[in-house]
């Protein structure tokens, strides 16, 4: 789910940039903030950081004693993306394994769907392995699936999330790319 949050971060401006006139300083602060934001990639609380929408306020700068840099508290709004348990989302299959499939959902690369959570689907090995059910509904690389999120795990070292999802409820499963009346197969 997409989230919009108001945050306050501290932006450190090196002393060299402080000679500039008022507007250039503001630009330096915002560019530095964008930089820090892009570098952060994701946080456990907010999920994947996507974009800064507005800068609400730039507070008074505080000089750091030993370096001469100035610290500015900046209040801004940002959009992020995070998976929540129980949420219904769509993802695209990018790997098919015997144990299940791996999907991509928005910025998240590692969404795991175990075969045990794909009721009535059976693995069909081959050069292009797929999962098939009795009604000939196919799950293969490139299929868009609607799933429910069972859980999400934050990996501190990689600064990313892994998710575990399932199709074990009504109205979940393969969907076509474009919306239409008979969009999906019921499991």
């Amino acid at each position, binding site marked *: *789910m*997409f*989230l*919009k*949050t*108001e*945050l306050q971060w501290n932006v450190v401006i090196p002393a060299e940039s402080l000679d500039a006139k008022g507007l250039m300083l503001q630009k330096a602060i915002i*560019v530095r903030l*964008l*930089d820090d*934001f*892009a570098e*952060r*990639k*994701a946080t456990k*609380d*907010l999920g*994947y*950081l*996507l*974009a*800064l*929408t507005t800068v609400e306020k730039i507070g008074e700068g505080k000089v750091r004693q030993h370096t001469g840099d100035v610290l500015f508290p900046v209040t801004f709004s940002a*959009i992020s*993306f995070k998976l*929540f*348990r*129980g*949420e*219904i*989302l*769509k993802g695209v299959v990018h790997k098919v394994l015997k144990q299940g499939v791996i999907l*991509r*959902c*928005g*910025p998240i690369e590692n969404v*795991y769907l175990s075969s045990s959570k794909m009721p009535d689907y059976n693995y069909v090995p081959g050069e292009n392995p797929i999962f098939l059910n009795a009604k000939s509904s196919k799950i293969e690389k490139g299929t*868009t699936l*609607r799933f*429910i999120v*069972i*859980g*999400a*795990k*934050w*990996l501190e070292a990689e600064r990313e999330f*892994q*998710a*575990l999802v*399932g199709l074990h*409820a*009504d*109205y*979940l499963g393969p969907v076509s*790319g*474009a*919306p*239409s*009346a008979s*969009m999906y197969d019921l499991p």
Partner: protein
Amino acid sequence: MSDKGGKGFTAVPKGKGKGGKSSLKEATPKGKDDGPAKSKKTRNVQFSSQAAASTKGKGGQADGGAKKDKEPLQLKLENELPKGAKCLMDCEAADILQGVQDHMVILSKDPSIKLPVSFDRALQYTEKSTNYTDPESVRQVLQNLKTYGVTDGEICVMANVYPETADEVFALLPSLKARRIMLDDPVNDVLSELAKLKKSA
């Protein structure tokens, strides 16, 4: 950093801070060998302990999913939302991200300005999900359900799911099922309004 788990880590060669986590280090009593052999053992121990720690610890949700069957699989967003965060529907997010993209076309001339890595993927995701003609009207229509106790998170999931029938809504949002009697009519009304706002295929 490695001083944290200092017990017996004297000879751990540059454990990249991971040395700090593993308390299983004490279980390898052949402590005095320095060098690669020990570091291999150490590394193996750390890996398995880290995996164990992460399953048991804070990251337990993914593997613990099966154990969590006791708790019904429902959206309880409000407990997990960070402070001050607001839920956005996919269509609203699409508008905002597209706006940022348009600005970036102008700003990209400045090489010092860059967007987060996840931005492009998120934008693509929302482009596939833009099924409504007017996100603001969708929000207004769904806001009516708030008077019946439907939460912001449930409203957003409802919009994102692009439901055809009330059955679909209640199947995908089991948290609403309990109040179906009360919500059936309002949900049906909302669905007929949403149908008018859907983009034609």
